[in-house]
């Protein structure tokens, strides 16, 4: 198998090198890729969509149909992870529970389905628990709001600077994952339950596709944001800019929850009992 792999990789490599000789030189401004379709984007974006970040404009307006499916890809990956991994444990299967006294760090084991009534003094911990680490927990808890504010900035400022729904969504998701890694999965699930994650993920992409369907109902083609102009009360070009913002928000919600959903399932092997 090793030899076969080498041979295939070598043949493919030689073939690709042979073909690459015919390419225009690297970074040649006169190459067809830079002269055929792309000049239109660079020169017309501002007057057609009033978005200075050309990548955002092309991503969420000219090729918005692609981007809708891109959001769908991440949605379907999250659903696949849930579908493949999630196992619903029955209550009886968990015989003993571990609790930690928050102040002293003493660990208690409760057997035979017993449980401690919920209180602030004790917290439930995983089977493979790790020692209580105040520094990591506090620092991460402090960082989370700043990460989230930065993420919101990235989403909102995507028209003018690098960024947009995907990047912002991933960073938002990362803030939740940081919380899950520094504390445990149970803490995260208390703040953001599985059902909420699942519904928000669908709602995010639905916001994107729904915007498109709204345009369709208003008599224009699917995702043609200029149809939204009468609703938003602005001109058709500005409506495109606003439309881009709406779908970016949808993408951000979908990507955030998809990342959290995948992480929850992968890190707990689908039983949601213990995280990383």
């Amino acid at each position, binding site marked *: 198998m090793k030899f076969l792999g080498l041979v295939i990789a070598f043949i493919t490599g030689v073939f690709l090198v042979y073909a690459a000789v015919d390419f225009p030189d690297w970074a040649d401004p006169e190459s067809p890729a830079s002269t055929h379709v792309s000049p239109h984007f660079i020169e017309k974006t501002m007057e057609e969509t009033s978005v200075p*970040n050309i*990548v*955002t404009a092309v*991503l969420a307006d000219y090729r918005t149909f692609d981007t809708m499916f891109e959001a769908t890809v991440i949605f379907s990956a999250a659903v696949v992870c849930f579908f493949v991994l999630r196992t619903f444990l029955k209550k009886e299967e968990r015989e003993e529970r571990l609790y930690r006294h928050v102040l002293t760090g003493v660990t208690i084991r409760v057997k035979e389905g017993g449980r401690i009534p919920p209180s602030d003094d004790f917290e439930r911990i995983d089977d493979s628990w790790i020692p209580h680490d105040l520094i990591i927990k506090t620092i991460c808890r402090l960082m989370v709001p700043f990460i989230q504010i930065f993420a919101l900035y990235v989403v909102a400022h995507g028209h003018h600077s*690098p*960024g*947009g729904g*995907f*990047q912002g969504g*991933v*960073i938002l*998701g*990362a803030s939740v*994952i940081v919380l899950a*890694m520094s504390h445990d999965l149970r803490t995260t699930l208390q703040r953001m339950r599985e059902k909420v994650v699942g519904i928000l993920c669908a709602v995010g992409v639905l916001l994107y596709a729904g915007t498109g369907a709204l345009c369709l109902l208003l008599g224009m083609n699917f995702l043609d944001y200029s149809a939204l102009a009468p609703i938003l009360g602005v001109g058709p070009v500005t409506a495109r800019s606003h439309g881009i913002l709406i779908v970016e928000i949808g993408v951000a919600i979908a990507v955030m929850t998809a*990342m959290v959903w*995948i*992480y929850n399932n*992968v*890190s*707990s*092997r689908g039983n949601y009992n213990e995280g*990383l």
Partner: protein
Amino acid sequence: MLWQLDLAILTLVVIAAVGSLMVKDLLGAAILFGAYSFMMCLLWTIMGAVDVAFTEASVGAGVSTVFFVAAVFRTTRRTKD
């Protein structure tokens, strides 16, 4: 752009890629893969693809590495090659 810097990063990319495939520990491989993604992200910044680099920094170097580490924690670090 400085061609020396460019070349250094390109070399590092290849080294990180080979390293992550050679190292006989899956956790190490995951971390090296994170380094690979980050080098890639630098390379794209140099080429002017800021949006792509931003995405790669958050997705490739960030979340992907976390997924790898999570999966390795839930399975095993052992690998024969």
